[in-house]
């Protein structure tokens, strides 16, 4: 097999790790709160800017900048819930979509106002690893590993802790949990915080690979939605598997043609798959 194709496939798998992380966050929020955060990828953008500013302007060590980014986005997730989602919680789903869509506009423009449209990077260049004459970017390898660690940590959290169990209970039946002594509002806040933190973690991993600019959310935002829908909205394992399917389509498509066409292919595949499995690939 062609060595570049192998490289493309490996890069696809590595990309899938980060996408899976984002899909998990979005899916968690959808499954529990029943709202789709259209602006989810833009929260990642905010996280990237936080890390960028702390690291380059205030000389905060990268690790602490990243931790601050995760904590900051967790807080941001809570703020988004309190300020935007809570008031429209009982509105029509379309209004909920639009409220977070307005947030998307707001965040992108506000970032433009603060930082301009320049591409910025933190100037950390990680080495390239060579394995059997295949070149793998170390940044992507880290991103993949931490993506998996994040996913496993989320899984354990949901399975093993009290709050995690409560979150799963709300996702299963939001009307009955009140009878079990679970405060629904607190669970919503906790879920938003976790969703935000996952976006923050993704920001740490992406800031190592890509330049930050106000519209970076547009690059992978639509892809994350596709992944979640393909896996079945709210279905975490489905989303996890779908991340790797989509990232492979993009990577292999990019190898045979160009980037835009590989995305066209991915979106078209998504539309067709939706017709084959209208409730997601792994719907029962």
């Amino acid at each position, binding site marked *: 097999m062609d060595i570049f194709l192998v490289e493309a496939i490996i890069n696809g798998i590595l990309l899938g790790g980060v996408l899976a992380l984002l899909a998990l966050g979005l899916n968690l929020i959808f499954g529990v709160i029943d709202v789709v955060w259209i602006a989810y990828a833009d929260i990642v953008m905010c996280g990237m800017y936080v890390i960028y500013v702390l690291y380059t302007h205030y000389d905060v060590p990268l690790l602490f900048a990243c931790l601050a980014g995760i904590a900051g986005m967790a807080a941001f997730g809570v703020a988004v819930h309190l300020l935007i989602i809570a008031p429209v919680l009982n509105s029509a*789903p379309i209004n909920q979509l639009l409220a977070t*869509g*307005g947030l998307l506009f707001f965040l992108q423009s506000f970032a*433009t106002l603060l930082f301009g449209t320049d591409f910025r990077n933190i100037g950390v260049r990680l080495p390239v690893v060579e394995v059997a004459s295949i070149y793998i970017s170390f940044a992507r390898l880290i991103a993949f590993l931490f993506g998996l660690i994040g996913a496993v940590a989320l899984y354990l959290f949901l399975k093993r802790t009290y709050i995690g169990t409560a979150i799963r209970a709300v996702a299963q039946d939001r009307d009955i949990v009140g009878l079990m002594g679970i405060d629904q509002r607190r669970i919503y806040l906790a879920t938003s915080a976790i969703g935000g933190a996952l976006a923050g973690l993704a920001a740490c991993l992406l800031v190592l690979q890509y330049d930050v600019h*106000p519209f970076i959310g547009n690059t992978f935002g639509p892809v994350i939605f596709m992944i979640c829908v393909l896996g079945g909205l709210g279905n975490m394992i489905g989303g996890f598997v779908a991340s790797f399917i989509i990232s492979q389509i993009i990577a292999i498509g990019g190898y045979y043609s160009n980037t835009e066409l590989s995305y066209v292919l991915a979106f078209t595949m998504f539309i067709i798959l939706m017709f084959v499995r209208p409730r997601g690939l792994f719907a029962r």
Partner: protein
Amino acid sequence: MSRLGASAFALAALAAVLPAAGPAYFLHLLIQILIWASVYTAWALMGRFGFVSFGHGAFVGVGAYVPALLWNYFGLTPWVGIPAGIALAILVAVVIGYPCFRLRVVGHYFALVTLALSQVVLLTLVAAREITGGSLGFTPKAAGHSWYALQFPEKTYFYVIALMLWLLALSVWRWIDGGINREALEAISEDEDAAAAIGIDVLREKLRITVLSAALTALGGAIYGQYMMYLNPESVSGIAVSLQIVFAAIAGGVYSLLGPTVGALLTISLTEGLRVWFGVTFIGAANTIYGALLVLCIIFMPQGIVGTLRRAMAARAPKAAAAD
């Protein structure tokens, strides 16, 4: 003629004398408002029945690019090119709509499938950069003042064209509103199974309104392209345009004839006003305020501006009657 129809007529009469009143920039703004108002009205044809499409950016893009491409590469007049663009938009609407409605892809899933569609058109336009100019945009060959090329340097011509387009969109709305299909569509939006049970052909009704909406949207895109004489994938297709359409229509209100027009009037004058106000000193400030206002609008006026006003008036009317 109903009260709404009469007010629409009065507004049209007012619109006919407006262009004489202001400078060219004012006219330019008015043309844009009319064209987008038609597109938003076209979207609301579906949107009011709960078929929320995030894919109308695709139809604007197809409608705008097809006539321009045919004109530049084959010298084909837009009089043929625009119908060709509309035909392609209808084809796309059927290819996506038929399986969607057949397989009952509804709600979030429908919104996201159509979202993917608008991205497919955007990325195809960017990827085919040898033909379309990609992200750099595409300029139709200028032909001066020409009916054949449907190009007029004088804005008044396009003002009349845009006005006619807008009136067409409003009449289509009225036509649907007055017809039997409206009740069928309302039944479908309430409960598809129940609608099917009383003998409504759900698939046909949904497909019909989608095709109508897509065709009108593509026509709007075509007129926009002919007027602007410059096309860019980002400004006529993709998620941004789709969201802009949904926003403005919802902000204005999708349940009343003039709701989408009010949405166009407000959003376009707001963005233009903010842009002029801030100038080039604070890039992004205008859109930041715009975004914040959108969120506030959705939170505090879920019925849209026209819907909220009407409710407020309806609430006041009985009180006024009681006072007499």
